[in-house]
């Protein structure tokens, strides 16, 4: 099922069982623990125009509904260029925004799965014309959303009005991930994405 809420940054493709409380973060039908999530969960990255990704999502929806591909999300639009004020804020955090802000000019699709089944999912993608082969573990993405990580610092620079608010967001991020992973044998719960 393609889930397209205009207020969201992302368009999602879920199996309908998600709406009955079942997790899609599974391997061989079993939910992953926190440790398994960090060790094995990730995504194939697909770059393209919104139109291309819409067309691809429509084809991949069949595999999601069949339970072969756990979940997909993709950008509603490419990342916005950072304005000068935001870049200055990033430089104060020793983050050079010039190098990266201009190079991602396409939408990004993430095709999620456990890396132990990633080649099966890759065969589906390559059969639908995907050429770029790039696997990103979710633990890498988590690092980018921790304090000092480029994704969190970009969000803070774009959305927080002052230092106090920025520090609050950093502490909340640190605490969120600490809470999620303090028990590595617990079932991974995740966090809401908008």
């Amino acid at each position, binding site marked *: 099922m393609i889930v397209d809420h205009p207020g969201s940054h992302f368009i999602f493709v879920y199996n309908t069982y998600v709406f009955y409380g079942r997790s899609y973060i599974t391997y061989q039908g079993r939910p992953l623990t926190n440790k398994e999530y960090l060790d094995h969960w990730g995504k194939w990255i697909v770059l393209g125009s919104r139109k291309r990704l819409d067309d691809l999502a429509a084809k991949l929806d069949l595999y999601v509904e069949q339970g072969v591909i756990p979940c997909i999300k993709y950008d509603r639009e490419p990342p916005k260029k950072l304005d000068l004020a935001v870049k200055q804020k990033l430089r104060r955090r020793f983050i050079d925004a010039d*190098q*990266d802000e201009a*190079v991602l000019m396409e939408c*990004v699709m993430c095709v999620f799965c456990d890396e132990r089944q990633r080649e099966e999912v890759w065969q589906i993608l390559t059969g639908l014309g995907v050429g*770029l082969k*790039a696997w990103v573990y979710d633990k890498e993405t988590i690092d*980018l959303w921790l304090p000092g990580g480029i*994704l969190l610092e970009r969000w803070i620079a774009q959305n927080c009005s002052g230092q106090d608010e920025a520090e609050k967001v950093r502490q909340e991020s640190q605490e969120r991930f600490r809470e999620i992973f303090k028990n590595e044998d617990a079932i991974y719960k995740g966090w809401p994405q908008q």
Partner: protein
Amino acid sequence: MLEDSAADVAGCIDGLEARFPGIKGGLCNEEGKLKGVFNIYLNGENVKYLQGIATPLKDGDEVSIVPAIAGG
């Protein structure tokens, strides 16, 4: 897409620099190590989980360079 005959990822980067002067500075720091701005993949696997820029290449390998923020 480009073809190259480099023996390793470092050689591949040097080959790109020869064709597109300045590109190496966007990928590597002054010590020749990869910056965090881009990720380099060999047949889909991030080379940081392999041997970094010393990762050897063989005929038929595919090297991809992707902005690190992709997939965030």
